[in-house]
């Protein structure tokens, strides 16, 4: 375990100067007249997890399918470990594993038969294919169900088998399109562990997700994609700080106090405070944390009782909303602090 962690760390350091696993330049895909992907640039260093984050219909799947040689780009180029995805597709396919958004395993066969089939297609001997299949089934907790047809599998089991199938050839690059959509929290955590294990062993992972905490937890870098364009790129921290400062969250004993508290908070912080919809909380941006005690003192002096208090860094959710412009709540200025929006 110790050595593994060390290995992981050295991997991460090595990753700084590592070669590019994925290099996309101005990728375009048209469906009819609709530009599903509209000039996407990506650079993913080998040995890292890269997150593609975007709402429904942003073009994540389309981008992944082009990189995985499943769709032909209408414009731009992409290289996987230096090989062109169009001209050298056959080579690229030897370096990638693809777990699509929708299960790509054979429903009529059993789990074992599926893995054996893909193993044999990848050139393993019958024996090696069986051993690899057994090992992966074990690793993904599917050993008991291995002889059942997939028709009877739950969504989570199918998903895990799907990922297992992508790992047979131990490809150095794995595409995971929404790997945890539809999984329960426990299975989701398992999937995260699996992804971390993969990276620890040196695999590069490109994952798409709509779960912002997932990208936050797993990815070293994130590209936020919306309407076929990369609108921001950077580490999770860079993205978060791009939205600006922390915010103060206050919950009050008595909802009737909120309007009065709001005036006090706004006066003390010199910024606008927003009451939450259920009317017991207040949220206010904090640009200068040294003013926080003033707020509390003023509230106490007014006889307003606080039941909960917290200072939060911006979540990736807020980043997302700010950047995509589909604002759900009012956000602060400073959108372009550290990252360069490319729209």
């Amino acid at each position, binding site marked *: 375990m110790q050595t593994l962690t060390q290995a992981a760390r050295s991997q991460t350091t090595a990753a700084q100067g590592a070669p590019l696993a994925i290099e996309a330049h101005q990728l375009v895909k048209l469906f009819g007249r609709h530009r599903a992907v509209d000039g996407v640039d990506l650079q993913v260093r080998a*040995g890292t997890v890269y997150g593609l984050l975007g709402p429904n219909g942003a073009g994540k799947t389309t981008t992944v399918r082009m990189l995985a040689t499943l769709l032909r780009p209408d414009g731009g180029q992409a290289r996987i470990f230096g090989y062109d995805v169009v001209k050298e597709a056959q080579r690229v396919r030897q370096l990638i594993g693809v777990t699509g958004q*929708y299960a*790509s*395993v054979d429903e*009529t*066969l059993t789990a074992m038969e599926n893995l054996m089939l*893909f193993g044999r297609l990848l050139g393993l001997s019958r024996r090696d294919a069986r051993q690899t299949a057994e090992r992966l089934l074990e690793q993904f907790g599917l050993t008991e169900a291995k002889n059942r047809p997939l028709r009877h599998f739950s969504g989570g089991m199918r998903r895990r088998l799907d990922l297992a199938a992508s790992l047979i050839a131990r490809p150095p690059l794995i595409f995971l399109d929404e790997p945890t959509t539809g999984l329960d929290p426990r299975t989701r955590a398992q999937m995260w562990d699996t992804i971390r294990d993969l990276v620890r062993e*040196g695999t590069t992972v490109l994952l798409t997700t709509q779960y912002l905490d997932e990208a936050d937890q797993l990815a070293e870098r994130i590209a936020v994609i919306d309407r076929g364009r990369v609108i921001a790129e950077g580490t999770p921290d860079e993205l978060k700080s791009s939205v600006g400062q922390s915010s103060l969250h206050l919950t009050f004993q008595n909802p009737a106090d909120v309007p009065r508290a709001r005036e006090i908070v706004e006066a003390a912080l010199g910024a606008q405070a927003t009451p939450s919809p259920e009317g017991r909380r207040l949220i206010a941006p904090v640009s200068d944390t040294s003013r926080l005690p003033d707020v509390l003192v003023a509230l106490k002096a007014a006889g307003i009782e606080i039941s909960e208090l917290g200072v939060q860094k911006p979540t990736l959710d807020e980043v997302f909303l700010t950047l995509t412009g589909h604002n759900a709540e009012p956000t602060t200025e400073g959108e372009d602090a550290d990252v360069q929006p490319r729209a």
Partner: protein
Amino acid sequence: MSNRALDTVPARVSATSTLSQSLTMAYRGLLKVRRTPEQLFDVTVQPIIFTLMFTYIFGGAVSGNPQNYLPLVIPGILVQTVITASVVTGVQLREDMDKGVFDRFRSLPIARIAPLAGALIADTVRYLIATLLTFAVGFIMGWRPQGGAFHVVLAGLLVIVCAFALSWIFAFFGVIARTATSVQGISMLILFPLTFLSNAYVPVNTMPKWLQAFVNINPLSHLIAAVRDLANRGLVTSDIAISLAGAVILMLVFAPLAVRMYMRKV
């Protein structure tokens, strides 16, 4: 894992790998047949119904009695049944291609032809079942092929080989069509006149001259004649050569077309 030599990645799939991948895919096809035996409905029921039906309906009119009609009609029904079964190959391929697993096949470093060839090879089992059943029903009804067991087997093999070759046409339709039903539609439209405007059920000399002209150039007529000569008389005729040549030409045209269209879909 990461130490894999990235610069020794070969650019193409070798011929032996192509063959073994196709056979692996064929094995998948067989597993599927075993899981969903109802897919064999057409090749089990049709030979039995058609043989009984055609023999008793046309037998008296064409040959005086059903018994005498058997040597004429069994080869005809055999060819029609097996060729019709090859249409289903295209239909099932279309259905199969719409499934998620084909995405994985496309993303694997395997020969592009393997998923297609595998499906078509697996389906020869269907042709074999249809052949055995047609012969068996005929035998039960009193057909005694004079060519002997060896020539009957040869006749059966000839039909299966030709059906395999022909199935590339329907595989091609399967690849280009948008839905399985349209594959069925187009294929039947081609197949219906081909099988009925042939020597399958009635002697050609009973037809009008203009129709005879078509029937005589219909490749299926040659195949049926070849089967009759083999099974009933133990004769190896030029019809065999014509049938096989036709099969090879069809395959040389449609296999590359089907694969090319399949790749274009990617």
